[in-house]
């Protein structure tokens, strides 16, 4: 069975619906073979996502830990995944994002200085950043958004792609991106705005 699925992989690997199916199999049956496919695809992406947090000296350890912790959460929370609200890829990305926020906080000097215990009463990323949009969109609309993004992403000028990547993958704020790129904050803001306009996201800019 497992081998059969692996053979199929090349033709199906770009199909987002496939990830949904695998995630649902994990949710319903704790299907380990399905989970292994998700792990093999997403864990290396998550590690790369974590590794982009450049200011940490422990990047390698942190990245490895983030990939593992995120996949553990995917396993444990699979039954809360709602395929009509989100795609598996976006859902896993938001779990990685939230896990990265909390890991960075745990490792940060600021947190140590605040003398707090990281316990159940601590506000975590999940309290602030929902891992699934509740009622605003149906999956059909989000897949439409993703399609629009994919259609026009290649038309973006490189300097806009660079800024979008820094903000969405490397986890820098607009101001941090400005100082890293040695550009005025206004330039960063306008590059993001221009990119969002080009991608035709319905965001007032």
């Amino acid at each position, binding site marked *: 069975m497992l081998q059969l699925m692996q053979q199929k992989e090349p033709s199906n690997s770009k199909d987002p619906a496939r990830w949904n199916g695998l995630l649902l199999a994990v949710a319903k049956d704790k299907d380990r073979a399905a989970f292994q496919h998700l792990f093999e695809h997403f864990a290396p992406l998550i590690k790369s996502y974590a590794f982009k947090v450049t200011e940490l000296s422990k990047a390698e350890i942190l990245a490895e830990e983030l990939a593992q912790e995120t996949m553990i959460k995917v396993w444990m929370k699979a039954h809360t995944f709602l395929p009509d609200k989100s795609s598996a890829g976006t859902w896993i990305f938001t779990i990685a994002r939230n896990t990265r926020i909390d890991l960075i906080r745990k490792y940060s000097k600021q947190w140590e200085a605040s003398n707090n215990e990281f316990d159940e009463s601590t*506000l975590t990323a999940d309290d602030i950043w929902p891992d*699934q949009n509740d009622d605003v969109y149906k999956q059909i609309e989000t897949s439409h958004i993703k399609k629009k993004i994919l259609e026009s992403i290649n038309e973006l000028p490189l300097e806009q792609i660079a800024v979008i990547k820094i903000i*969405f993958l490397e986890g820098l704020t607009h101001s941090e991106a400005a100082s890293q790129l040695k550009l005025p904050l206004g330039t960063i803001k306008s590059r993001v705005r221009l990119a969002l306009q080009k991608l035709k*996201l319905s965001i007032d800019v």
Partner: protein
Amino acid sequence: MTKYHPDTRFISDFAAGSLPMSQALCVSAHLHYCNECKQKVVQLTDLGSTFFDKSTPMSLNSDFSSLMDRIDSLPKEMDDDSNVDIALTSNVSPSSLPSALNKITNNSLDSLNWRKIGKYFSYSEFNIGDPLRKTSLFNIKAGGNVPKHVHEGDEITVVLKGSFSDQDDHYQAGDFIVRTSGEVHTPVAAQDEDCLCLSTLDAPIKMTNWFYRLLLPFVRRTAQTA
């Protein structure tokens, strides 16, 4: 109707997960009242995940079986994480403060340690592990005002209940108001209802402790002007 929204910069830093905790708390409080901005966050999260999908993978040092060993060694109740559903739906209660604030206040505003300044103004500060900013809830009694004050750092205020006015406008539940350093204003709560707000104020880093404590989250000059 919410009139003041976080700008694209706040919304995209929020969706990317890089906004400092205290400011992210303010954005999430705003989202509680504003579906329009929620939709923007969803779109920007999709944008982030598109770039995530296209990024270059890095191979792991550990393999799948060691991950499953870790999972199998977890306590059973953690494996079946049914609490998650409750957390996801808990913000439908009619009292309806944003859910993160329910956690901070332990579902009871009275349980907080409130400090009063003057007749109308009280605030309660809490530590969410962001030492660069002061984050607090504040309450202005119906018809009461906050003494005139100058902002020393950038401040975000989100109205949670009731409404207040200053020289510029009238602000209602959900409004996300950014004040930059040096702006002077005198908020007055509406006559008929107390006004509860969430606020976070940038605090300069290089402050000595005694000075830090003097810098109240919302009113600094009260002592002199009252």
